[in-house]
């Protein structure tokens, strides 16, 4: 089921929770709303579910406008952040709840529940109460309960935020697997960018109720449209530079920051001032500056963090900027100490130009 949101606006008092949002979610797509807390992502999800009425704007499921369909008739399956399992009902009755409301015969209920329990690997726990389940199991019950009614759209509101880190990774792979199996259109809300990249076909980044960028995880990671997206999706060095010259033959932009020349690949000449984004892992350590390579600089190490698979330096460079550099697999690498000088270098095709 395709979901279309058209010019959605919603305010709470003076707070603009949703600011003119337009979204088209394709049939069968796993779509994520990603943003910091208070960005409006949950409100948007609740608007789709019907728990929250938009001030203006329309919601379509397929060709059907659903604005005036009350939440209990909207045929969405929602998984809540705290699971919202009915504490007085068993696992079986929790999952059967939506089916019973649809007056489905007992036999079909049994077979449907059997199938879904198989899918979420909860066989044998039918008679337990929610209080007797672990967090991960509760999560599966909530998912099963939402899926068993074969909703048109599956809505998930930070479903993994109450699980511990290890379980979260396992669960998100499972959610993705089940979603692909069933081919169900899914809208997923999270503030965790890694989780969002791991599960989504496409995602939208929200901030202050506005959509910042829509795209596939790799598009958003490698081509952030603005500094918010660049900073929110992974970490990034954002450097403000002045444009000096443009060489159309080589498509090379010559820029300057505090007297240092940075060359940036670009199809077009740009404004006088711009921001470039440089991911920490795109920067390599160089032997020394003397080889005078393009985009090779020196700086003073001010902080070293060893994370096992990654070694992270904070380097003071370009006079007074702090640059983060990450070295993957640092096993055979001589780790510099704080205060030492370090040389680093990056390709001209690495920096991403961001409109400021």
């Amino acid at each position, binding site marked *: 089921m395709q979901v279309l949101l058209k010019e959605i606006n919603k305010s709470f008092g003076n707070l603009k929770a949703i600011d003119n949002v337009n979204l088209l979610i394709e049939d069968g797509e796993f779509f994520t709303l990603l943003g910091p807390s208070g960005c409006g992502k949950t409100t948007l999800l609740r608007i789709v*579910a019907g*728990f929250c009425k938009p001030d203006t704007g329309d919601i379509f499921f397929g060709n059907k406008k659903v604005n005036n369909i*009350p*939440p*209990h*008739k*909207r*045929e*969405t*399956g*929602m998984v*809540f*952040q*705290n699971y*919202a*399992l*009915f*504490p*007085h009902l068993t696992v079986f009755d929790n999952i059967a*709840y*939506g089916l019973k*409301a*649809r007056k489905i015969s007992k036999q079909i209920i049994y077979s449907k529940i059997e199938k879904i329990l198989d899918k979420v690997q909860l066989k044998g726990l039918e008679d337990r109460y929610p209080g007797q389940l672990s967090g991960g199991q509760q999560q599966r019950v909530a998912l099963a*309960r*939402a899926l068993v*009614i074969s909703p048109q759209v599956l809505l998930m509101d930070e479903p993994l935020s109450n699980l511990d880190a290890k379980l979260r990774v396992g669960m998100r792979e499972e959610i993705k697997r089940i979603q692909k199996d069933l081919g169900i259109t899914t809208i997923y809300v999270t503030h965790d960018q890694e989780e969002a990249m791991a599960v989504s076909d496409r995602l939208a980044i929200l901030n202050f109720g506005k959509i910042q960028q829509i795209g596939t995880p790799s598009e958003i990671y490698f081509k952030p449209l603005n500094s918010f997206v660049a900073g929110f999706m992974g970490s990034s060095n954002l450097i403000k530079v002045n444009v000096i010259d443009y060489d159309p033959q080589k498509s090379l932009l010559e820029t300057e920051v505090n007297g240092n020349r940075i060359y940036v690949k670009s199809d077009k000449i740009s404004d006088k001032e711009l921001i470039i984004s440089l991911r920490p892992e795109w920067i390599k350590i160089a032997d020394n500056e003397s080889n005078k390579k393009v985009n090779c600089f020196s700086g003073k190490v001010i902080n070293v963090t060893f994370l096992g698979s990654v070694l992270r330096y904070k380097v003071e460079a370009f006079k007074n900027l702090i640059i983060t550099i990450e070295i993957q697999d640092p096993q055979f690498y001589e780790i510099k100490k704080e205060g030492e000088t370090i040389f680093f270098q990056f390709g001209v095709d690495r920096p991403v130009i961001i409109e400021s």
Partner: protein
Amino acid sequence: MLRKYLTIWNIIFLSVFIILFLSLIYPLFSIFKASFINPETGKFSIESYRKFFHYAYYLRCLGHSIFVSLIATFFALIIGIPFGFFVSRFHVPGKSIIKTLGTLPLILPTFIGAEAWLLLLGRNGLLYNLFHRIGIDIPSIYGWKGIVLVFALQFFPYVFLMVSSSISSIDSSLEESARNLGANSWRVFRTITLPIVTPSIFAGALVVFYLSIENFGVPILIGEDYKVLSVQAYNEFISEMGGNPSMAGTLSMILLFITLSVTVLQKYWVERKSYVMSSLRPPEVKRLKPFPTFFIWFFCVFIVSFALFPFIVVIISSITKTKGPVMYYGQFSLENFIKAFKIAPRPIINSFFLATVATIIGIIFGILVSYLIVRKKGFTSYILDVLIMVPLAIAGTVLGIALASTYNKGMIVLTGTWMILVLSYFIRKVPFSIKTTSSLLHQIDTSIEEASINLGVPPLRTFIKIIVPIMLPGIFAGAILMWVTTLAELSSTIVLYYGPWATMTVEIFQRIGSADFGPASAYATILIISVLIPLFILHKVLGKDLLSTM
């Protein structure tokens, strides 16, 4: 347009307000009005108020009320604070029994406590006679000392419960961090523990003061010439020489002013001062050396026994042979019970019937109002929230007088029917039902409802299928609390009942008045048992401390 506002919950809102208006606001307004009307001329007059502040007689009643309540509060604190500290901080043998028994006095009817002390220290009392025979005249129970004794012993559990729950809610890391910062244990107690507990001590003190000043049964039974406001209001209203509604109204208004002030103080001052903490690790229960442990144990056991002793006396008296006011202790007989059950069973049936009807109405009303208050937040539900707790701030006598004088004429006449008793019980006790259900509802996340709606069940059916079952323990607890406290209700019953609808409490009260202690004790015993059994069930079934809900 009209249809839009005619949703089911708005209709319920409206009905709730109508019921509250008829059972609470309008009656209060009518006695307010009556207090300003000269009963002879029927014109506006402030004569009654002038009289009140002019005659030493009335002012003395006010003075008495405040005096006994203050002294009783003082003693309740003296007993309740250490009791609360001891049972929540230290290892005491048999602690859970001590705690359970220690909370019982506040659920047992105070006028039965008064009866017991009359049996012991009254003019023909057991101990009084005993000491008199060996030549010692011990002070009698009559007057303010007796009133204070009964109040302090029966109301101290409020202080103890509040203090102990507040102590248990202090996270142990608070005291540990104070220790870590270099404070010794006395300093920690003085600078951390005590200040955190202080608001609960105040809260407990206000509750005791309120209960003392609104109490009717104890001062009328053992006060004798020591008249307090509630008793005087009743006398003015019921007076054989034709009651004075204006003076009764004035006294009620003054009593109402005091009780409301205490409640407002409680709500806006104490609640603001108390600290909300999410205790992750409750403080450690210390094991003291044998001697201090014994001392603490002895203190607690002594207090509990002393507070429950009167009720044992009543139960023993009920199976003692009697002849009018003369009790033959040591000679047992079931005659009193036979009398109660055979000759005059009506009061027992009345009590059960009225309490049950009032409770059923209270449950339904309580569920709906709780839902409105917790879920339909807004200005109207805020007003409702405040309004619904008003009955807790009105002395039973005052409410009785208000209802009786409102519904004795006009469009709705209820005076002289059983319905007015139900109305009074309902409005007085429904806050219990609302408190227990709404506190449970607060813990139910809205997402539970949304999940049900999302799965295809419309809102009202969701309420019935999901919310009501989850609230069931709270509803059950509220119902038992309502039922039990209604059974023990005397102060409004005495104003509102008429002949055939006398309840057990009225029967006990009247028989004490005519020194017919045997049957009085039999009825009292039946009442005590009827109160304790449901509470015991509540405790067993829900594992709930009955008093955590009060």
